[in-house]
């Protein structure tokens, strides 16, 4: 497969698309673990407070 | 240490709010500023905090230190100076760092009963909780003169007694409390200054 005289532009286009996809995946994955972490933290605090009150 | 006001006067919007006012508050003393609406209670507190200029007279904390009066007061106004986007802890840490405190912010949060929710965004707090967060900054950063404008507004009964305890401790430590209020805020042995009585 030869990309002809404009190979740089083709490679750059695929690189940008790849970067965008990686960015989106990273956003989704990191956001998920962050929400999970905060949720777990909140649940733990809630449980601790309930047990202290008893 | 003594806060002395000597024949001070203040004009706002062309109207004389108060004039020829003299009083002094010594360390460990509390002064309740009372009077009808518009008598100048808030203006007096703002003047002591250096937020409003006096048109006559002098205000000083004796003996003179190298720090100005404004740097030695805590001003608790009608608004709570709480940022909803920051967490409860972050709000207090910022004001403590800014106002020159080195005190532990956890203790201050505990004093106002917010220690369990220091991690929550301040936007989730109720009005009374925001008020308590605002009061926590007085505890966290040590300053001798407290200027409290209607401090019990939107506080429930337990929080009001917490506040009374906090003010008591401050007075016992040689602090000064000047509060403008209509209500009984639970200060024992407070002197009273009635504005606009004449």
């Amino acid at each position: 497969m030869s990309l002809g005289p404009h190979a740089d532009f083709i490679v750059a286009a695929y690189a940008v698309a790849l970067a965008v996809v990686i960015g989106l995946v990273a956003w989704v994955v990191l956001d998920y673990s962050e929400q999970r972490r905060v949720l777990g933290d909140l649940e733990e605090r809630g449980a601790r407070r309930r047990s202290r009150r008893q | 240490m003594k806060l002395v006001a000597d024949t001070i006067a203040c004009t706002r919007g062309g109207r004389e709010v108060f004039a020829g006012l003299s009083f002094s508050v010594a360390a460990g003393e509390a002064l309740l500023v009372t009077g009808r609406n518009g008598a100048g209670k808030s203006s007096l507190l703002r003047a002591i905090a250096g937020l409003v200029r006096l048109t006559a007279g002098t205000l000083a904390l004796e003996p003179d230190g190298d720090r100005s009066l404004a740097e030695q007061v805590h001003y608790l106004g009608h608004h709570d100076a709480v940022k909803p986007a920051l967490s409860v802890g972050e709000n207090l840490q910022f004001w403590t760092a800014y106002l020159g405190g080195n005190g532990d912010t956890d203790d201050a949060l505990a004093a106002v009963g917010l220690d369990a929710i220091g991690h929550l965004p301040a936007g989730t707090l109720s009005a009374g909780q925001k008020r308590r967060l605002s009061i926590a900054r007085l505890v966290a950063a040590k300053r001798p003169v407290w200027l409290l404008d209607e401090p019990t507004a939107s506080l429930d009964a337990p929080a009001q007694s917490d506040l009374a305890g906090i003010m008591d401790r401050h007075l016992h430590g040689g602090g000064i409390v000047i509060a403008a209020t209509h209500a009984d805020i639970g200060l024992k042995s407070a002197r009273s200054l009635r504005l606009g009585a004449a």
Partner: protein
Amino acid sequence: MALIDLANPTRFLDLVRRVLPWLIAATVIAFAIGLTMAMNAPDDYQQGATVKIMFLHVPAAWLAMLCWALMSVAALGTLVWRHPLADVAGKAAAPIGAALTFTCLVTGSLWGRPMWGTYWVWDARLTSVLVLFLLYLGVLALYWTAEDPNRGARAAAVLVLVGAINLPIIKFSVDWWNTLHQGESIFRAGGPEIDPTILRPLFAMALAFLLLFVTLHLAAMRNEILRRRVRTMQMMQAQTA
């Protein structure tokens, strides 16, 4: 499972948990096939190898528009039926749509440079994609600015519906204005003009992009539901403190 069951966020999370691994696998396979076909596609007699950029550019453009269409449906769901998942669907789609529009613009500009000798021309279709991008960013800004998520969702829904008028303009702008950009060449009366050897990899890539979009959207919706749970729990803890 009836559709009404999906309205329940917990059921929805359950569904996402079961479906997501399959979707990820399908996306990876679709991209493997699509990219292989794209690599082996013959060069265009006019554009040479740069036609390979089209396999990214066109699917990204299609998905960017499809995403706005989906957000419009979600906006109706928010405004008319007050459906609990509609807000979530709309909000989760917006960043993905913006990223796809961005990809479309950048790949288009990298395609334009060797073809037209410049990265950008203010041709009608390019410009309307740029406007679509601005609309996406506006919706995102609205979501980020709103302190109350529910009010933000309703405001964004109005903006999305108004912006939906932009979609047909993009589609038909080629007919309205005659410019440097190529004329409409795939969905025109009388059947496609492009050679099947290029059309097949194009549709394979479009399918891969569609699967990618669905996967990301479901995952983002799950994150959004969790974010709302966090907020609810924070409210509850503040109340009981």
